[in-house]
């Protein structure tokens, strides 16, 4: 009896598995008039805030594309749809869910997760199954040194984040009749892959100008105190202070720079926006230089969303909860646009053909130019540097996109 039960159970499981396979094949990712994209994204856990920003970015682009005629392939118009899973902000779960999307759900076109860490976990999976992925939220330089063939990123890589602040410091030194090599730089970077990438980019540029590094501290991940570093800064009087350590680093730096009244003429740090330093610390953060992937004041545009400002308006109308549109959302929308563009140029749903088409992408969007290097990162869009001036973020560098001139030395109260 027992053996009979076991056989029965085995048979049932077999049928079930076969059924899944058949179903999987049947739904293979262009069904009727719908193209299904897939993404594992952080809807809970420590990246949930930004994960939701990214998801909203994907959704608004999908909605816009579907409303304006969809994606045209082979003379037929298709609608887009995205399947999401919550990766709980953990890389292991992200990799599992990518497998599930590809193997069980039969997704053939992927959108990225949020953060470099999660992208690092998902990229090997998509590459293994030769499924192209357009990602918008993983900036770490190390993603593009692994030889992934099916990975494309619309955003600028992390080593560019603060490099422009070094160029700006050199420019200002020249204007003041000093040599760029006289500039003294103090650095404080968190000891994690992303921030160390940012640091690598800064050091490259420091060496290029022959500047002098006077402080080079690495902040541990679980540290919310940098007063010892700032004591050094006060003693050594650098011309430029650069800090990067996600939102926590920005909040800690802003708080303690205010508290210790650190008087450095130029201060550049990442994640000013997500740490909400203006709301929290008021006029004391005036003059901070903050890099951003995108700003609604830039003069980028396309015939789809219109200008960057139009996108900003549409986004706020669609998601009334937002006071500012995070760049995480803008770049997510850009990733969906890249897919639409690739489908239409390839005129096919063959993943190999799509991969090659993606590699040839060269488009202008509201988010900036998009053109992929051999490694898959976007080389057509620069990082821009914004300065907090009277509580507002104004683009000050590179000069091509600048709307305001830089305040130097910084005027903090």
């Amino acid at each position, binding site marked *: 009896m027992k053996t009979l039960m076991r056989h029965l159970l085995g048979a049932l499981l077999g049928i079930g598995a076969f059924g899944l396979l058949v179903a999987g094949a049947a739904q293979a990712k262009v069904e009727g008039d719908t193209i299904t994209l897939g993404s594992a994204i952080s809807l809970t856990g420590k990246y*949930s805030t930004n994960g939701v920003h990214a998801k909203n970015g994907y959704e608004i682009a999908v909605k816009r594309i579907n409303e304006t005629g969809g994606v045209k392939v082979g003379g037929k118009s298709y609608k887009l749809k995205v399947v999401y899973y919550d990766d709980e902000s953990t890389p292991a779960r992200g990799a599992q869910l990518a497998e599930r999307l590809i193997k069980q759900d039969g997704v053939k076109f992927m959108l990225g997760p949020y953060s470099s860490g999660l992208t690092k976990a998902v990229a090997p999976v998509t590459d293994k199954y030769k499924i192209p992925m357009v990602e918008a939220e993983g900036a770490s330089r190390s993603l593009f040194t692994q030889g992934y063939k099916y990975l494309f990123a619309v955003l600028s890589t992390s080593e560019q984040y603060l490099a422009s602040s070094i160029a700006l410091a050199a420019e200002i030194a020249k204007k003041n009749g000093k040599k760029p090599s006289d500039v003294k730089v103090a650095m404080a970077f968190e000891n994690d892959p992303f921030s160390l990438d940012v640091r690598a980019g800064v050091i490259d540029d420091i060496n290029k100008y022959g500047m002098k590094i006077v402080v080079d501290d690495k902040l541990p991940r679980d540290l919310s105190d940098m007063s010892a570093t700032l004591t050094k800064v006060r003693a050594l009087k650098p011309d430029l202070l650069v800090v990067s350590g996600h939102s926590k680093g920005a909040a800690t730096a802003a708080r303690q720079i205010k508290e210790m009244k650190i008087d450095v003429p130029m201060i550049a740090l990442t994640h000013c926006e997500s740490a909400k330093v203006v709301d929290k610390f008021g006029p004391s953060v005036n003059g901070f230089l903050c890099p951003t992937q995108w700003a609604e004041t830039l003069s980028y545009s396309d015939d789809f969303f219109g200008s960057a400002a139009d996108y900003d308006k549409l986004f706020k109308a669609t998601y009334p909860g937002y006071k500012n549109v995070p760049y995480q959302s803008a770049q997510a929308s850009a990733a969906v646009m890249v897919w639409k563009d690739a489908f239409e140029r390839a005129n096919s749903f063959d993943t190999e053909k799509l991969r090659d088409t993606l590699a040839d992408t060269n488009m202008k969007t509201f988010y900036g130019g998009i053109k992929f290097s051999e490694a898959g990162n976007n080389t057509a869009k620069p990082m821009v540097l914004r300065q907090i001036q009277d509580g507002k973020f104004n683009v000050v560098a590179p000069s091509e996109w600048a709307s305001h001139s830089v305040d130097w030395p910084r005027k903090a109260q």
Partner: protein
Amino acid sequence: MLDNLLLLVQAPVLNIQLLLDGLLIGAIFAMAAYGLALVWGVMNVKNLAQGDFVIMGGYVAYVFTKMDLHPIYALPVAFVVMFAFGWLVYVTIIRRVIDKELFTSLLATFGLAILLQQAMNLIFGSDVQTAESGFDTRFLFGGMVSIAEIKFVALVLAVSLSACVVIFMKRSRMGQAIRATAQDARAARVLGINTDRVYAFTFSLNCAICGAAGVLIAMIWVIQPYFGVVYSIRSFVIVTIAGLGNLFAVIVTALGLGAAEQFSAFIFGAEFQVASVVCLLIGVLIWRQIQQARKRQVVE
């Protein structure tokens, strides 16, 4: 590293800055550590959720700023709220693991820590938060040394709270009962002390102290649902070095560690700030081992 040392020699005034910063933050570590020592000594429960209680207190201060109240008023509120919360945790969880083996209580409090982190994440989101005190900064020695007034206020509050706790433990009925239970729970029961109530009170008191520490931390540093572990680790290090049941030793150790952290961060770089604390712990443990080995020899 040598440059930094040289800097300290050339500008001795920097030593004062580091020492002050270290002592001021050490006072706050002392609070969380004392709570841990209390629970550890009286109930033999090693509470891994210690840091998360601290962060919970921090969020009380954050809620106050959201309601446009000064976060300093959150101190008594956090004390009371966390006391009640501690009682709840004791009744639902701790009471069930108190006489079980060490591993059970570790697992239970570890589980509690995860639960609290996720709950705070759901309620407050994963963004980094602060509670601005709006206090100014004072400068000494021609602007070379700065003291944030809030740190000074925190020191005064931490010291007075500790003093209250000491007096309470020495003078009050409950304090005496707690100390009696810590010495010998069975004998205390025989003499008519309701040890279950003593345990509940001890655990709640610990939560309350942590909550108060959290309010100060939210005003000095930044908080986030997942930052509790740092304070748990520091509390364990301090208690391990200072030993149980000696408030004075806990305070001195905490102040010393605070200062040691600042100096090592200055000299070796911020990446070694926490590492140096752990190295110190290892050093103390080795030293103690040697000492005890000598004692054992004498006994033999």
